[in-house]
């Protein structure tokens, strides 16, 4: 956990000798028009370049521009950065930056008691207070008494700092986020150059805006350095994290997923045809891939979710790597087409960036409630492999693995990620592409005795002959096909055989994936916490802390959701209790219970927020009491 800021020396001690902290959690909160996501990502970038480990949690509303000043229009960005391995965005912020009354109202409760509150008093007036639902001024009525408060008229100081550039009042006020960024960069000894470079690029077309924003950053920074804020002004630093040597960059899940898909396609020797329809929070992947045409990536923005997956399947039929991507509601629409890809045995990668459901649900909030849909959600007996990524960086490896399985076994593969992973950033050791093992696809080209349904005896994958190849002309479709000839067959025994074959082919993939490892702790014991997906960070930290307290607890984090690793059942039997925390109502627990008759205890949360380490610690302690 982050060191409590209350324990460190204040600026009055000596502001030129920053105190060194192990880690800090900052939450930037403001109106959705205040640019808090930019403040957060730039702070993150600057922090990462200094070799500090970090994890982030962008938390923003579904509305693009909700009415100004309302609580539902508040956009926040939380970063946890530390001189040690950082796995979560932090349970409780040490510092809250509140740019208006609504941001204060919605975020103050999260702030650690005694934590630092930086508040823009320039945004507080009777109108904005009323809009946020305050009946009295929280700056005066004792609401903020438990915190160290830094009251700043950021609005006024920003306007002054950009006065010379002659911006409109609206444009000038919009520099507030950069002034604030400058101040926070000073408070934690972060470098400014990356922000300046970024602003120059962003406002390349307007020297005036570039200069004004840079001036705002510098003014905020200078304010921190020169202000006499006796006692309550922090100035501290967070050192470099002890991480493995190598070259690093920051990466979000969406970026790492895009890189992984391109890497996978190159290892397979195929071009990508990515068919997708815009949907939050999955669109970022479409945006990423649309810029990678020079790597043989074709992106197709289809007219709807169904056309998106169908175009990808068509492309796979014609010899590309078909990929489609969506979030829960869109994945539901793709269900019938997934069945066709299963029936025709074509490779396909389906990415699901999960969000809160059901129906439209919570588009910008994270959840992992599409596991049932992924494993079971199609008509007929329609098995397909499902894999899940645990961290933003992990999306890279998981994407490559999805491509490998899809092409080797001629099957659609569902890759589960979520809104949190898609947007969250972390430092990422850039992988050595040359060390990755290629898995080149061999198209079938021999016309002799050709049948589209002849199979590899071991993998049960059918051959892949593509249009344009002389002598292997064939027809495929969703009607049941004869096991030997591939022609339409309604024969009852044949349907039994084909259903069994499809089933065994997917289950057989369990022989081709790594055995499940104990992620942390002993291989047997009193309690194992089993997780999957983006709960990795909080569970890891909680198990680590519980073990440090002497509790007999281990962690298993699962990547291969279907088929499950062959040894998973045995591993679970080595523990007296099994706890499965999930951001759903207990879907993986159902799968584990069904497959292993194990008494998996559910711990569920669907409030759109990642698990808090403290809550996991508490449940672990209770189960071992």
């Amino acid at each position, binding site marked *: 956990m982050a060191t409590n800021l209350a324990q460190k020396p204040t600026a009055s001690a000596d502001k030129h000798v920053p105190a060194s902290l192990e880690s800090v959690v900052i939450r930037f909160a403001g109106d959705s028009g205040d640019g808090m996501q930019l403040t957060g990502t730039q702070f993150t970038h600057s922090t990462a*370049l*200094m*070799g500090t480990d970090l994890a982030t949690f962008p938390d923003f509303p579904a509305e693009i521009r909700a009415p100004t000043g309302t609580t539902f229009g508040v956009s926040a960005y939380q970063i946890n950065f530390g001189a040690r391995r950082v796995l979560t965005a932090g349970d409780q912020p040490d510092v809250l930056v509140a740019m208006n009354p609504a941001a204060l109202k919605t975020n103050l409760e999260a702030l650690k008691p005694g934590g630092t509150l930086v508040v823009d008093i320039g945004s507080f007036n009777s109108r904005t207070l009323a809009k946020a639902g305050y009946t009295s001024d929280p700056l005066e009525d004792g609401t903020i008494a438990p915190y160290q408060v830094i009251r700043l008229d950021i609005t006024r100081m920003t306007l002054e700092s950009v006065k010379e550039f002659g911006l409109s009042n609206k444009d000038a006020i919009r520099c507030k986020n950069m002034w604030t960024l400058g101040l926070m960069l000073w408070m934690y000894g972060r470098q400014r150059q*990356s922000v300046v470079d970024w602003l120059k690029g962003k406002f390349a077309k307007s020297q005036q805006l570039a200069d004004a924003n840079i001036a705002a950053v510098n003014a905020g920074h200078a304010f921190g350095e020169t202000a006499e804020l006796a006692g309550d002004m922090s100035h501290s630093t967070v050192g470099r994290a002890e*991480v*493995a*040597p*190598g*070259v*690093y*960059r920051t990466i979000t899940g969406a970026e790492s997923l895009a*890189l992984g898909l*391109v*890497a996978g396609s190159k290892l397979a020797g195929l*071009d990508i*045809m990515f*068919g997708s329809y815009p949907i939050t929070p999955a669109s970022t992947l479409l945006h990423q891939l649309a810029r*990678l*045409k*020079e*790597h*043989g990536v*074709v992106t*197709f923005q*289809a*007219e*709807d979710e*169904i*056309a998106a997956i*169908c*175009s*990808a*399947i*068509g*492309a*796979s*039929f*014609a010899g*590309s790597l*078909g990929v489609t991507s969506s979030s829960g509601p869109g994945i539901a629409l793709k269900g*019938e*087409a997934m069945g*066709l890809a299963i029936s025709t045995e074509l490779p396909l990668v389906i990415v699901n960036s999960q969000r809160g459901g059901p129906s439209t649900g919570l588009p910008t909030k994270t959840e992992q409630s599409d596991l049932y849909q992924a494993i079971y959600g199609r008509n007929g007996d329609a098995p397909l492999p499902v894999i899940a990524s645990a961290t933003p960086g992990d999306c890279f490896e998981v994407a490559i693995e999805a491509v490998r399985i899809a092409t080797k076994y001629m099957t659609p593969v569902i890759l589960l990620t979520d809104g949190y992973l898609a947007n969250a950033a972390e430092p990422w050791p*850039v*992988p050595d*592409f*040359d060390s990755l093992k290629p898995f080149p696809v061999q198209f079938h080209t021999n016309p002799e005795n050709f049948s589209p349904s002849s199979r590899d005896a071991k993998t049960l994958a059918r051959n892949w002959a593509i*249009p*344009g190849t*002389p*002598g*292997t*002309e*064939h*027809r*495929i*479709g*969703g009607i049941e096909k004869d096991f030997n000839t591939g*022609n*339409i067959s309604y024969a009852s025994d044949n349907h039994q055989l084909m259903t069994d074959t499809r089933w065994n082919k997917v289950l057989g993939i369990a022989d081709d994936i790594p055995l499940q490892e104990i992620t942390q702790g002993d291989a047997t014991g009193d309690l194992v916490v089993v997780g999957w997906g983006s709960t990795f960070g909080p569970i890891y930290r909680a198990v680590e802390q519980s073990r440090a307290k002497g509790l007999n607890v281990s962690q298993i984090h699962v990547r291969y959701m279907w088929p499950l690793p062959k040894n998973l059942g045995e591993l679970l039997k080595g523990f007296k209790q099994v706890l499965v925390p999930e951001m759903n109502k207990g879907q993986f627990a159902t799968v584990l219970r069904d497959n292993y008759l194990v008494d998996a205890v559910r711990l569920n949360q669907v409030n759109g927020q990642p698990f808090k380490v403290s809550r996991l610690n508490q449940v672990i302690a209770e189960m071992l009491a």
Partner: protein
Amino acid sequence: MNELSPQKLTAKDYATDQEVRWCPGCGDYAILKSVQKTLADLEADPANTVFVSGIGCSSRFPYYMATYGFHTIHGRAPAFATGIKLANPDLDVWMVTGDGDGLSIGGNHLLHVLRRNVDIQILLFNNEIYGLTKGQYSPTSRPGTRSPSSPGGSIERNLNPCNFALAAGARFVARTVDTDQKHMPEILKRAHGHRGASFVEIYQNCIVFNDGVFADFTDKKAAPERQLRAEHGHRLVFGPNNEKGLRLNRDKVAIEIVTIGENGITEDDILVHDETDALLAQMLVTLDGPDAPVVVGVIYCNQADTYDAGVARQVAKAKIAKPNADMKELLFAGSTWTVD
């Protein structure tokens, strides 16, 4: 040319060994025959030819063509065809659909494949009924159609497929009749020669559930009186002796049916078909009234850039701009830092 003829494929060479399973007397047999003949005439390479279909009677078509074929899911054939063309623009893709598949469940996809102008041939078999599900009314069924799902007669207004295609921005729209074995191959060859989405509506008789629904203009006896064969550069005339024709009523911007020799009408009054004229095309496909003929032939043909070519150009341009794009460079893009 004779010395090459032993290599030349015949219509039969484009047929598979699969038993054709349409009802005896179904119009689809005639269309299948026409398509196979067309491919033979075009000397189409079976290895480079793909037939894509959705669901319905018409959509069984690919199983009977000795080319590559994909029988997909209901209504979505345009999306599969688009993906195939994006993966390999050199493939010659034919899409087969029906009035239910293409205009009801798949209406959205048909709209967009036409709008994007993906370079494929689209054959829409219109029999104004759902055949495979046993005879319910379809979006092209005329109002009052009695069917198992509309015992009191259908209430909905019917859709005009060619008008739909034109409104969607199709650059090639044609009509033909299943049994017209001379006309159909000509139209299919024109569709094939057109670069872009070529939409062909084929009036197809469903002998079991909607027999004779087009008889008033397809029967041998009725055809001369009720069918007008549009040909680019020729006057829009019809009738047993080509004595009737279409004239533009300039006061109303409407087409009227006139008889040459009556009321001072001469041949010069008759409109000359211009297949590049979108407004004329729209008037021709929506001709209505007791005297109005059904216009068949190539009604609109006006080539434009295709979607698949545009996509391929962008990819090629990106590859020229970054000839050394490799995975390592991509992985190290942006700001990096080194930990020693």
